[in-house]
């Protein structure tokens, strides 16, 4: 094996890191961790990853990857197959168009932007689920999850930034 092949494999592995990390986060979200409160809450780690990578490295998070990740999330959660894919693709499309707002700005700006996106994604999920169920659904848990998602965003970003700096290939 030549050095060239090795470095190509290395590059390929580094390029799929955001995707694989998101897969790991989705699996983490399904862990049966007991909660101190009665309401089991799953923060939307997948949404955080989709947001971060489509703002900062859209070359490593193409639409196909977002689609596949959304489907995977639905297959695991037992939700309607495709609902998360629709919501994440919508998020991806909007964020990709507006990413210049966040580039080079302080973190608070991204956090605020993510909160808006998370609320919109939550509202979309609530509306679609309600429309398909035929009546308005109870949104208590949704709100709790939204809050947890927004509060945990900085933690996830710390992880993404570390990956971004150390592992990812530089933009050519």
């Amino acid at each position, binding site marked *: 094996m030549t050095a060239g092949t090795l470095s190509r494999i290395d590059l390929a592995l580094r390029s799929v890191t955001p995707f694989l990390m998101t897969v790991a986060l989705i699996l983490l979200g*399904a*862990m049966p961790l007991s909660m101190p409160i009665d309401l089991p809450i799953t923060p939307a780690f997948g949404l955080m990853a989709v947001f971060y990578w489509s703002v900062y490295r859209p070359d490593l998070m193409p639409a196909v990857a977002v689609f596949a990740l959304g*489907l995977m999330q639905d297959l695991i959660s037992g939700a*309607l197959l495709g609902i998360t894919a629709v919501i994440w693709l919508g998020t991806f499309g909007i964020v990709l168009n507006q990413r210049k707002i966040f580039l080079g700005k302080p973190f608070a700006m991204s956090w605020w932007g993510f909160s808006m996106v998370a609320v919109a994604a939550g509202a979309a999920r609530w509306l679609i689920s309600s429309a398909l169920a035929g009546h308005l*659904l109870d949104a208590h848990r949704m709100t709790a999850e939204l809050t947890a998602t927004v509060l945990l965003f900085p933690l996830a970003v710390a992880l993404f930034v570390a990956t971004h700096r150390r592992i990812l290939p530089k933009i050519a």
Partner: protein
Amino acid sequence: MKARTEAVFRFAAPVRVAAYRVAFFALFTAAFSLMLLSKAEVLIVERARTFAMDLLTPVFSAVSEPARMINSGTAEVHNLLYLHQENVRMREEIARLQQWQSVARRLDDENQGLRALLNYAPEPSWRSITTRAIADAGGAFVRNMLVEAGTEQGVSKGAAAVTGEGLIGRVVEVGARASRVLLITDLNSRIPVMIESSRDRAVLAGDNTVMPKLLYLSQDSHVNVGDRVVTSAQGGALPPGLPVGIIASVGERGIQVQTFADWTRIEFVRLIDYHLPSLPGPATAVSDRVPRGLR
């Protein structure tokens, strides 16, 4: 060379942007159509789910181990902190339960005697399989759980899932080594139940809150807060008398049931297969397999 590359880029860039747009909309449409197909409960969607479930079972099984250790660790600390109080409570509980035990023994004897007297048809047999919950799947609008037992362990669709406290749901998808349990709090869950004291029948419907509601209770029935709700044999799908919960409130918003199951810590689940004698079903012997989690 560099100039040439730039020229190619200048030409290719708009084409690439257009191609990306088309691909994006194609994917979006595909996801949307898939969602509608899935709503129509197409068989292939269920197959895909079962396949993914089987594929991911080893992963969940491996990763749920540390999660379990964290859980038991926190439980351990809690136990140490409240050891004394717990001990006092337990003593009182034991004293109370011993009285109940003697009552139960007496009633059981009486029941046996009366059944013999009436020539009562024997109860259908139950098969039960104990297994480990490996993933707490679901999301804001779905409540379900993956357990580590499937067709290979003899699980069949429709089996009741219970914990020590009471009913938690029913098996809706069965893979080779894993199954999905739809919890009674899920929107789509409908369980035939009855009020234990009055024997009034109703349907327990999940509504995405921690307290499911009672539907279709007859007009003339009286329900009081604190009444016990148990499963009924209506429809022949569930064994009758499994504890479900107690009536928590009766009011404008319907009748809410506080479930016995403790949703915060479900580790092992017992799946009960119930077969009416008149219906053909698999062998009736109690499963002798020891679930992996208990070995």
